[in-house]
C-alpha cells in the first residue's frame, strides 16, 4: 500500500474547564491516503469537526492538542509555529466550511479573492492568475465564468457560492481538503450537485478529502472510506460499502438502521436507546456500553482500541478474537 498522506496518531484534544478537563478527542488514530475521500461521520458532539480543526490548527482556545501526533507526509504538523501553520493552510491543506458566506469576504469580488489566493500560493502574473481563476470557476460549474468573476458573493445563490468556495480551496492546489459539512446548509437538489463537483474536482486534481458530515447519504455518495466517530473516539473505520452494507460496530449498526429506507417499507425504525453522553459524563470502558444491546462485563471496564478485522477496523470487544 502507498504511504499515507495524512497520518493522525493517538490524537487527544482537551478543553480545560474550571474544575475538570473535558476530553473532546480521545486517542483518535486514522490515515488518509493520497487522492482518497475519507468520510468522518458521527452525531453532533462526536468530535468530527474538532478532528478537522485540530489537523488544520484552528482549535478554538482553550481547546488544545494534549497528546498525539499529526503527520502530513514527512512533516509533523501538530506542533508547528503559528506562522508556518498559516503558510501551510491553503497551500497544502485547504478548508471548506458549512456556510459559504463565512468563507467569502462580502466586500471583495470573486476575482479579487480567487486571484489573491492563487498568487499567494503560486508564482503567477496578474493576467495568468485571472485566466486560471476563470478556468477554475468554469471547472466548478459556474456558467459564464468570465463575466461572473467580477461579481460579489451576495450576487450568487447558495449553491453557486459553495462552488466558488470549492474553487478557492483548490486554488493553491493543496494535497488535502478538509470539508466540514459542505452541503448541510444547501437544499437537497443543490446538495447532489455540490457533492458531484467536489468529487469530480478532487479526482481531477488528485486531492485527498476529509469529508466531515452527519449525513449518511453524503457519505455513501462521495466517500471511499469512512470513519465513524462516537463520543470523541473512532468506533469503526472501513470501506464505504462495508460500513453501509455490513457495519461491524453495534453503534454503526444502530446508526444505519435508524435511517428511514427509501427502497423498503419498515414499520418501525431501529432505534438506539438513550443519547450520546456529554463530554463530562463519558462512561468507563467502551463509551457506547450503556446504550449497547450486546455489551458484556469487559465493555464496562476496559476501553477497546481499534481492532483490525477481515473487513476493517473496529473498536469493539465483540471482535477481539478476530484480529488479523
Amino acid at each position, binding site marked *: 500500500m502507498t504511504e499515507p498522506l495524512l497520518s493522525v496518531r493517538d490524537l487527544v484534544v482537551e478543553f480545560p474547564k474550571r474544575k475538570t478537563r473535558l476530553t473532546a478527542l480521545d486517542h483518535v488514530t486514522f490515515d488518509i491516503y493520497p487522492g482518497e475521500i475519507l468520510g468522518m461521520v458521527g452525531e453532533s458532539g462526536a468530535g468530527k469537526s474538532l478532528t478537522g480543526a485540530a489537523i488544520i490548527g484552528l482549535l478554538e482556545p482553550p481547546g488544545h492538542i494534549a497528546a498525539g501526533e499529526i503527520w502530513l507526509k514527512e512533516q509533523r504538523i501538530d506542533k508547528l509555529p503559528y506562522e508556518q501553520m498559516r503558510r501551510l493552510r491553503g497551500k497544502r491543506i485547504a478548508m471548506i466550511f458549512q456556510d459559504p458566506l463565512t468563507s467569502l469576504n462580502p466586500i471583495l469580488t470573486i476575482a479579487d479573492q480567487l486571484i489573491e489566493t492563487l498568487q499567494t500560493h503560486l508564482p503567477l502574473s496578474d493576467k495568468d492568475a485571472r485566466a486560471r481563476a476563470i478556468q477554475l470557476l468554469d471547472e466548478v460549474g459556474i456558467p459564464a465564468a468570465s463575466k461572473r468573476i467580477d461579481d460579489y458573493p451576495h450576487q450568487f445563490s447558495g449553491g453557486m457560492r459553495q462552488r466558488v468556495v470549492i474553487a478557492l480551496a483548490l486554488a493553491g492546489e493543496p494535497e488535502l481538503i478538509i470539508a466540514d459539512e459542505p452541503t448541510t446548509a444547501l437544499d*437537497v*437538489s443543490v446538495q447532489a450537485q455540490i457533492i458531484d463537483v467536489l468529487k469530480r474536482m478532487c479526482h481531477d486534481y488528485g486531492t485527498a478529502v476529509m469529508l466531515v458530515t452527519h449525513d449518511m447519504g453524503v457519505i*455513501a455518495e462521495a466517500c471511499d472510506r469512512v470513519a465513524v466517530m462516537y463520543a470523541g473516539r473512532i468506533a469503526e473505520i472501513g470501506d464505504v460499502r462495508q460500513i453501509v*452494507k455490513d457495519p461491524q460496530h453495534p453503534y454503526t449498526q444502530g446508526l444505519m438502521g*435508524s435511517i428511514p429506507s*427509501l427502497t423498503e417499507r419498515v414499520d*418501525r425504525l431501529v432505534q*438506539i436507546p438513550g*443519547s450520546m453522553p456529554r463530554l463530562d459524563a463519558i462512561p468507563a470502558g467502551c463509551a457506547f456500553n450503556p446504550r449497547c444491546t450486546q455489551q458484556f462485563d469487559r465493555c464496562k471496564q476496559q476501553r477497546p482500541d481499534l481492532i483490525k478485522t477481515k473487513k476493517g477496523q473496529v473498536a469493539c470487544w465483540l471482535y477481539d478474537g478476530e484480529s488479523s
Partner: protein
Amino acid sequence: MSSDLLLEVKNLSCHFDVSKPWLNRLIEREPQRFLTAVDNVSFNINRGETFALVGESGSGKSTIAKLIVDLIHPSSGQILFDGLSLRETQGETFKTLRRRIQMIFQDPFASLNPRWRVGDIIAEPIDAFGLAKGQGEVSKRVETLLDKVGLSGRDQHKYPHEFSGGQRQRIAIARALSAQPDFLVCDEPTSALDVSVQAQILNLMQDLQDEFGLTYLFISHDLSVVKHMANRIGVLYLGSMVENSESDQLFKQPAHPYTRMLLDAIPDHEMSGRRRKQVTGEIPSPIDPPSGCTFHPRCEFANTKCTQERPKIHEINGSFVSCWASAENRISISS
C-alpha cells in the same frame, strides 16, 4: 382507518409585503413588492392519517403550517377543520377548536421557554384550556404525559437546558399533547436532531398516533423521513402544490418532473444502486418567480405553453398533478 375528512384547505394563498418603507418607495419611485409564499394551495386530510408536505427552501411549507394553526393570516382561501374555521368561530367553539389543533416546532432549543420548569411548560396548555382542576391533578397529568413520551415524572422539576435535543423534543410533544388535540402540525420535527435520535422521535410519534388517534400534518424536506411517516404526500415548489399523491404511488410513479428531480437528488445512502438522473439548476427567487409554470426553467419537458400559462390540476392514477406536460401526455409515466 376511517376515511372521513378532518382538515380541508381550499385555495389557500399568502403574500408577504417585502417592499421598502413607503417613504423610500416614494423617493426611489419603486412599486410595492410582494413575496408569494403560498399560491392557491388546496388539499384535504382525513382523520387518522398522516399527510406530508415536502419541498425545499422557499416552497412555502412552513408558511402553510403557520397558516393552519392561525399564527399568520392568509391573503385568501379557507382552512376548515371539521367544517369550522378558526378565523370565523368565537367563544367556546373557538376555544375548543383552538385546543384541538396543536403544533410541534422544528427547533427544540427555541420552542421551550428556558426560564420555565418542564412541569410548568407542559402544564401551560392544561391551565390555559382549563383541562384539570387543582395543582394535584395538573401535576398528575404532567407526570402521565412525561411518562407517555418516555421521560420520567421527576423531570418536571428540571429546566430545559438540562436535557438533550431529543429529550427536549419529547417535552415539546408532551406539551402539545397536554392540550388533548386531535390534529398535530409537525413542522420539521426532527430536522434539528441526529439520525439515531430522529428514529426515536419518529417511532414515538407513530406510537402516539396509534394510541390517541391523532392526525398529523407532517412537514419535512427529507423525503426518506416523509416516506416512512406519511400516507399521502403533497409536493410543493415555490408556493404551489405540484403533486399530491398516495405515498407509495409518489415513490413508484412520480408524475411531476419536479417530484422526479427531488427523488433523483436524494443520495443513495443504502448503496442500493438506485438509478438516478443528474440534477441541475437552483430554486428561483419567490419574489420574482418565473412566468407560467414556475418550474419551467428547470424542466426538460417544458414548451412554450409551460412558459406562459399556469398549469391546471388534473388527476392521473389517483394523483393530483399540476403540469402541462403530464396533462398532455408529453411525459411517459414509468417507474
